[in-house]
């Protein structure tokens, strides 16, 4: 996430208004370096693969960049195992690392067909979401919803049930109406809700465990403009009226701030007005937020009030533009993340419990906690399978240890029946995960039939899906 609505300019103004010295703030505003690792690359060494946050890496024996589905099926059949599709590497979990073969679909990108009357498009899954928005807009189409960022490939986003926010809007996987799967046996299988229906329900969110999805047909809608309005509000008041905000806005989410009593509420709705923007979006403002947090913690009692006051001082921001330009945001502050989806009705109680635990343990964390709504779907391994979801995402700066923070909070999610995001950090294994998904055994059966030799199974998949 990023601190939407926060800018360094406004943060500085807020800090000054709260009585925090700008000079003192500047003096402690350091720590945005990525930590050095023992396996850091230097010239002359084999080129590694690394994920976005840098905590996962590998040196594969082979990198495959197929230029056609035929090249891909040959690769899946013949290249050294384990074979893992890599997307853009934005997942925090170890879905990708392999000493065998990494498969990149960078050459299989773009829109292959479209239906203007039905607002549908068939898209190569190597397409990055950042490229897809403008390409669909040129056809008069738009995806109904997008995640907070658009750096991922379409294939990676669907494979992990990636989502945006909106109580009436499902995950990206729920918008797939047809797909083509390249299997480890070297076959190409097409499926939809009527033809090969079991494969369709299993393959949409399948973590690259069944094969590599090459193409999907997306159910889109007419292109539209969206207006995003961000404002700071009292957390208690927000939670008391959350159902209203959820139902009154096409998209609604909020960020809770550990150790503060305010939240950043973000409502996004369709608009026919011309594009406009007030209040710049600064993806690096969370560094300044951390500096303020650390500085104010040095002053017991008064510091907490100063921190709270500075957050309250932030003015609202607005952004109106094409939907793909508003719903996704630039993000450059590296972090690690855990996200669980709890039943929608339990959301407010769960986030209260998370914030209370942070205070009770006095955890020194300040990265805002993102809370979103997602509609239920019928995808077997979707976190939203047959239940509306409330997602809670906690983050830690990449130069700080995420383990103690996430370990303290994760059991709270378990109490609420939470399902972990497949692409984010969690500690559950296959036996625990199987209890959360009613169609788990059906998925396992399809997996055994398509990959009986486990050519697509790396160590992480063996842990979370079984070997």
């Amino acid at each position, binding site marked *: 996430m990023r601190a939407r609505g926060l*800018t*360094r*300019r406004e943060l*500085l*103004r807020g800090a000054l208004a709260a009585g925090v010295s700008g000079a003192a703030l*500047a003096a402690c*505003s*350091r720590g*945005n*370096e*990525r930590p050095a*690792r023992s396996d*850091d*690359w*230097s*010239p002359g060494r084999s*080129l*590694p*693969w*690394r*994920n*976005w*946050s*840098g905590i996962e*890496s590998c040196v594969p024996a082979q*990198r495959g*960049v197929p230029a056609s589905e035929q090249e891909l099926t040959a690769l899946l059949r013949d290249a050294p195992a384990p074979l893992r599709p*890599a997307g*853009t*590497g*934005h997942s925090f979990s170890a879905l990708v690392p392999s000493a065998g073969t*990494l498969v*990149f679909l*960078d*050459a299989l*990108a773009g829109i292959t067909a479209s239906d203007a009357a039905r607002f549908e498009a068939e898209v190569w899954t190597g397409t*990055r979401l*950042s*490229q897809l928005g403008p390409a669909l807009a040129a056809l008069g189409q738009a995806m109904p919803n997008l995640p907070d960022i658009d*750096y991922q490939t379409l294939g990676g986003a669907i494979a992990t049930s990636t989502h945006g926010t909106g109580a009436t809007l499902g995950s990206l996987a729920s918008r797939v109406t047809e797909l083509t799967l390249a299997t480890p046996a070297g076959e190409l299988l097409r499926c939809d809700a009527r033809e090969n229906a079991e494969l369709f329900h299993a393959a949409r969110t399948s973590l690259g465990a069944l094969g590599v999805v090459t193409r999907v047909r997306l159910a889109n809608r007419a292109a539209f403009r969206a207006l995003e309005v961000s404002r700071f509000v009292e957390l208690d008041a927000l939670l008391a009226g959350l159902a209203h905000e959820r139902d009154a806005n096409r998209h609604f989410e909020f960020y809770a701030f550990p150790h503060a009593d305010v939240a950043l509420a973000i409502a996004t709705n369709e608009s026919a007005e011309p594009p406009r923007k007030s209040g*710049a*979006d*600064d*993806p*690096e403002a969370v560094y300044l937020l951390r500096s303020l947090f650390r500085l104010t913690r040095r002053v017991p009692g008064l510091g907490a009030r100063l921190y709270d006051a500075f957050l309250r001082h932030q003015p609202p921001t607005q952004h109106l533009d094409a939907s793909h330009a508003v719903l996704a945001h*630039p993000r*450059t*502050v*590296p972090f690690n993340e855990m996200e669980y989806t709890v039943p929608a009705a339990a959301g407010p109680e769960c986030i209260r419990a998370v914030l209370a635990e942070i205070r009770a343990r006095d955890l020194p964390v300040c990265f805002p906690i993102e809370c979103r709504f997602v509609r239920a779907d019928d995808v077997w391994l979707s976190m939203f399978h047959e239940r509306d979801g409330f997602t809670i995402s906690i983050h830690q700066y990449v130069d700080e240890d995420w383990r103690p923070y996430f370990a303290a909070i994760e059991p709270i999610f378990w109490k609420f029946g939470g399902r972990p995001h497949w692409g984010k950090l969690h500690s559950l294994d296959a036996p625990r995960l199987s209890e959360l998904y009613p169609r788990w055994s059906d998925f396992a059966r399809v997996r055994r039939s398509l990959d009986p030799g486990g050519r697509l199974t790396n160590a992480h998949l063996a842990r979370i899906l079984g070997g």
Partner: protein
Amino acid sequence: MRWRWALALLCLAGSCSCERDREPAADVQLSAAQARAYQTICASCHARPGTGAPLVGDEVAWRERRALGAETLVARTVNGWRGMPPLGTCGACSETDLRALVAYVSGSAAAERR
């Protein structure tokens, strides 16, 4: 970090102008795959004002970075550096690709000819 604070203070004074000429040096040759990587990956930050990344064509921003040497810039690209994710998220890129893209984005090739 110093430049960021300078930028923040400039913004406070209402005099911030982040728009730059974002065209890379035209005479740097990229392969088709490298050009695709630039358009779909590098440009999403290095040609997009406001992300914190140094913009292509911003000679002031790149001059001091180029002084670190090509090997340092390539190593930072592979390992990740501040907001720059490892490999720039181009897992499909080879070392040759990354070296070409670093030269292209940073303006190294053009600078050597000056």
